[in-house]
């Protein structure tokens, strides 16, 4: 049984700040007590570095760190040795792009993506364009930011070596048909890189079933600690890929004549002391989500979003941009009010939303503006919060937005 009121008791932020309505979950999420306990448990009970532990607490830290690989492997259905811990998805995508550029791609090869991607899934590819002469091409998306398989097929050819795309986009919450895209891309031998930042926290993700070659996500967007991300890669590809960072923990041995023998994946990608407490907290977060059930989470959020969408559609003072998308954020503006001003007004009513500027050209064409406000939900949000939000949003006007300064 999915009982949101029981679930809310797990979150100290909700208990400590019942005055806040937190609708900024696309940016980051609240942490439940089991995650906090896991992090504190390491700090208070077995702080030590990982690898080669010769004493009890170090052995325990080693095990907790290694266990998290198994938890994540279960969470996304892969092998533990295909799970690399990074700092966040941005780090994961940089490693993937740089690593592909270094050993897999050649001048003139094409990377296919969309204009609805987050900067973290564009800029690392842009660098390859500059440094290696890789070409970036965009697959068109429709009025709700969705990329259609026919258009992907049209864009594919022998020169395409990578298709890089979010499963769920961050601005409009468009869900892309990744499984079909991966199938089509593989017919041309292209690698598929999936940005899972906005999908992995909200729906069951099975990398085998999706058929992607690489994937990344961030712990902090799924109830886990900041500063931890995951890079999934098919094992043989990880073995072939070079790590961005070199240093301790990732080499098997080296000699003074510059010979370095790297460890196998995933360790070879984890140079230096990792974010041990963060990784352990991420493990607790994934366990927590799995105990609620990813399908339950998705279903609950879908209903809540539909409720939200129906209500906000009725407000005359609000422009609502993505009514047709079934998941992801509610993206809107107050009519005649600059996004940041309206978000500031909502903020003065203790409603946490994010105003943002989206450089993506397509979004300008699709929604006619560069700035929007996003209300992004998570499974601990409620209909009552939506009702309170709607009451406040109905009051968004230039006059009220300026009034917060007096």
């Amino acid at each position, binding site marked *: 049984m999915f009982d949101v009121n029981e679930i809310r008791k797990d979150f100290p932020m909700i208990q400590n700040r019942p005055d806040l309505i937190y609708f900024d979950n696309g940016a980051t999420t609240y942490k439940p007590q089991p995650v906090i306990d896991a992090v504190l448990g390491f700090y208070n009970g077995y702080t030590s570095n990982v690898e080669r532990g010769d004493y009890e607490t170090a052995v325990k830290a080693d095990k907790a760190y290694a266990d998290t690989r198994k938890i994540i492997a279960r969470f996304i259905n892969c092998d533990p040795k295909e799970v690399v811990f990074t700092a966040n998805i941005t780090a994961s995508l940089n490693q993937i792009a740089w690593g592909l550029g270094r050993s897999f791609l050649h001048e003139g090869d094409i990377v296919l993506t969309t204009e609805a991607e987050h900067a973290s899934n564009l800029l690392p590819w842009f660098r390859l364009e500059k440094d290696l002469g890789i070409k970036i091409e965009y697959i068109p998306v429709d009025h709700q930011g969705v990329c259609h398989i026919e258009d992907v097929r049209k864009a594919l050819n022998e020169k395409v070596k990578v298709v890089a795309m979010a499963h769920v986009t961050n601005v409009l919450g468009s869900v892309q048909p990744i499984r079909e895209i991966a199938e089509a891309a593989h017919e041309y031998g292209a690698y598929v890189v999936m940005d899972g930042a906005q999908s992995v926290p909200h729906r069951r993700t099975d990398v085998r079933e999706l058929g992607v070659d690489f994937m990344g996500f961030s712990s902090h967007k799924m109830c886990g600690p900041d500063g931890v991300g995951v890079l999934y890669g098919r094992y043989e590809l990880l073995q072939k890929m070079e790590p961005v960072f070199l240093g301790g923990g990732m080499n098997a041995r080296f000699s003074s004549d510059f010979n370095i023998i790297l460890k196998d994946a995933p360790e070879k990608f984890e140079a230096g002391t990792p974010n041990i407490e963060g990784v352990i907290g991420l493990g607790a977060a994934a366990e927590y989500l799995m105990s609620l059930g990813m399908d339950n989470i998705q279903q609950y959020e879908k209903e809540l979003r539909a409720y939200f969408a129906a209500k906000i559609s009725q407000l005359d003072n609000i422009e609502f941009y993505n009514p047709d998308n079934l998941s992801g954020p509610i993206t809107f503006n107050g009519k005649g009010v600059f996004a940041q001003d309206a978000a*500031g007004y909502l903020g003065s009513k203790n409603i946490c939303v994010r105003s943002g500027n989206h450089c993506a050209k397509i979004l300008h064409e699709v929604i006619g503006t560069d700035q929007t406000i996003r209300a992004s939900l998570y499974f601990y949000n409620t209909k009552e919060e939506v009702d309170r939000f709607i009451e406040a949003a109905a009051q968004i006007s230039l006059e009220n937005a300026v009034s917060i300064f007096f």
Partner: protein
Amino acid sequence: MSQTSSLLNDPMILRELIMDHYQYPHNHKLVEDERYRSVHMASDSCIDDITVQSRISGGMIEDVRFDGVACTISTASTSMMTDLLKGRSTDEAKMIIGQYFNMIENKEYDPDVLEEAVAFQNVYKQANRIKCATIGWKAMQQMIDESEASE
């Protein structure tokens, strides 16, 4: 003077002033003219994006203009800045800018020299908006500094 001051103490009027400068910004058009200096500012929040131009000659600010996409606070504060500093000597302008920054930092300031810009007297209470209220003013400060350095 005392009459204007009392009007400028009325929050309703100050609010109207901000709204008015936002909806109908003054000096809101850039020119293509080599005699103008120009500074492009994008605030850390990455949402305001404005360009301020000025023509400074012989220690006098002969013209100030701006354009861009920005929130009410950025737009209105920059619009008021252009009105206030156009036609001033750079020394006067530096003094006024200094008083304005004092106000924004919640320090002692002289409301009379700031005229309508006192509308932003409470911005210091919203730390995340201070950069909005100062973006155009910083651009102007930079151009004055550059003009003095080049003389």
